[in-house]
Structure formats: structure tokens, C-alpha cells
């Protein structure tokens, strides 16, 4: 296990997951769209997005999920994301500084599979959360 390993025994309810900055730009959104072979123009073409009544392009919702997943893995190498349940309450737009955050709210012992429940969300500088939900994460156990 690497130096970033976080064990079930080491975490408590109320502990924070190390936050991960997410600063989407036209370029990072384009890279995600390309990697996923997405063809919808509202993620890449500002003029087209405006024709739909938006201010400009938005990031695909799943890009936020991918960052939340990365936050958990960066915080605890060896952690296994079992469930991720989110609501999209606003758009993730290029040029807006965001931070992925998480908080442990429950701990569950289930035989050899010990898991934590976390509130997870993506927050902007004014405290609005365009993406918010919960995650179930299996952590390694000591010994």
C-alpha cells in the first residue's frame, strides 16, 4: 500500500476528505469531451450553447463525477468507490473556480469490507454547490 493509504481505523465521522480544486476551462472540458467521444455541441460550442438559452458551454455532468471520484482516490489510495449518488443543481462552467469537497458522515463495519459514507460536493467561491450528493467508499483495514 502506498504512502497515501488511509485505513478504516484511522478515520472518524466528521473528518474531511482532502479537497481537490477543479478549475474547468474550455480546454479541459474539450479534453474530457474528446476522451468520452461526446458529440453534443453544447459542451464545445459557445454560440450553439447560447442558442439553447445558456450563457455559453457547460461541462458534462459526468466530468464533475469524475473529479469527485478522483478526489476520493487522491485522498486515499486503495480506497474503492462503491457508490456515487449526485444531483446536478447548477452548471459547471469554464472559468469558474470550483473545489471538490467531502465529509465522512457514517462508518460501517461489514465483515472484511469496511466502508464509509461521505457527503461529497463541488462548491464555487460563493458556497453554491452545482453538484452535490453522497459516496460509499470501501477503505482498507489494518492488520
Amino acid at each position, binding site marked *: *500500500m*502506498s504512502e497515501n493509504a488511509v485505513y478504516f481505523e484511522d478515520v472518524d465521522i466528521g473528518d474531511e476528505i482532502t479537497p481537490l480544486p477543479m478549475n474547468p476551462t474550455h480546454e*479541459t472540458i474539450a*479534453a*474530457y469531451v*474528446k*476522451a*468520452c*467521444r*461526446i*458529440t453534443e455541441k453544447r459542451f464545445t460550442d459557445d454560440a450553439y450553447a447560447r442558442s*439553447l*438559452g*445558456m450563457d455559453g458551454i457547460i461541462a*458534462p*455532468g*459526468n*466530468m464533475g*463525477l*469524475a*473529479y469527485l*471520484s*478522483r478526489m476520493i*482516490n*487522491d485522498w486515499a*489510495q*486503495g480506497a*474503492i*468507490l*462503491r*457508490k*456515487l*449518488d*449526485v*444531483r*446536478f*443543481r*447548477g*452548471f459547471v462552467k469554464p472559468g469558474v473556480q470550483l473545489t471538490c469537497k467531502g465529509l465522512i458522515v457514517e462508518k460501517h463495519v461489514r465483515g472484511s469490507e469496511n466502508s464509509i459514507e461521505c457527503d461529497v460536493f463541488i462548491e464555487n467561491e460563493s458556497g*453554491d454547490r452545482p453538484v452535490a*450528493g453522497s459516496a460509499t467508499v470501501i477503505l*482498507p483495514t489494518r492488520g
Partner: protein
Amino acid sequence: MIEFDQSILGKEFVLGTFQITEDMMLSFAQAVGETSPQYVDPEAAKNTGSGGLVAPPIFYDVFRAHQMPDPKVQFGKISFNAGQHCEFYTPMRPGDTITVKARITDVYEKTGRTGKMVFIIRETTYENQKGEKVAVVEQSQVRRESGAGRE
């Protein structure tokens, strides 16, 4: 009452079978800035808990380009993803062949502060060549008349 194709409800559609390459996995991992060896370094990944390169969980998103069953809802000019419930099982590895199946589980309407909305719930199951479940994703799509006033 919302008008839509009722006959589609609950019916399972096989959207296709797709082979995953290492390149697809690496370009996805790179696009979200992953640095973890199990996602980005095929050699170093062998010494991690995963025993080799695996795809980050949200990698299932690469299969989205394929046609989803369409209940042909007669409402709304624009549609958004309202939420997603994902469960992850066996990780995806290079060379895996993933079969994607989807069904519409529910269609219902709701009136919010910004007016009427129609929700379409889709469940997509991803399975590998051994018949092992890789991921199940329940997506809630909302249709509405305009893109403005989302908040």
C-alpha cells in the same frame, strides 16, 4: 398527462458491445488529471492493489455516445441531466469487452418554481466479457421548456 411512448417502459435494450483499449483508458484518466499509478501507469499499476491498469470508475461515460432508448416525450425543448446514482463493481481493464444495456424505468412530471418539468429515469448496466457487472448507472434526465433560470 405527459405524452410518451408507454410501450418502452421497462424494456431492456442492448446498446452494444465495445472493446476497451489502454489508450481510451489513459486518455480518460488524463482528461480528469488522474495521477494515481493504477489509472495512468501500466507498469507501476502492476504493483498496486488493482494488480494492473484499471479505468477510473466514471470511465463508463465513454459509452454515452450510443443511442439510448427514447420514450419520445412530447414536452420540453431542452434536456439536462438532473442526477445520477452509480454503483461500481468489477473494475474495467484494457482489452475488456463491455456490453451496455439500458432501460427506461420511469417517466413522470413535476412542477417546480420554474414551471413544468418531465423526468425520464434510465438505468444502464455495464457488463464485462465474463458476465461480471462493472457498473449500474441510474440517470435522471429532466426536460423543460427553456434553459434559463436553472437555479
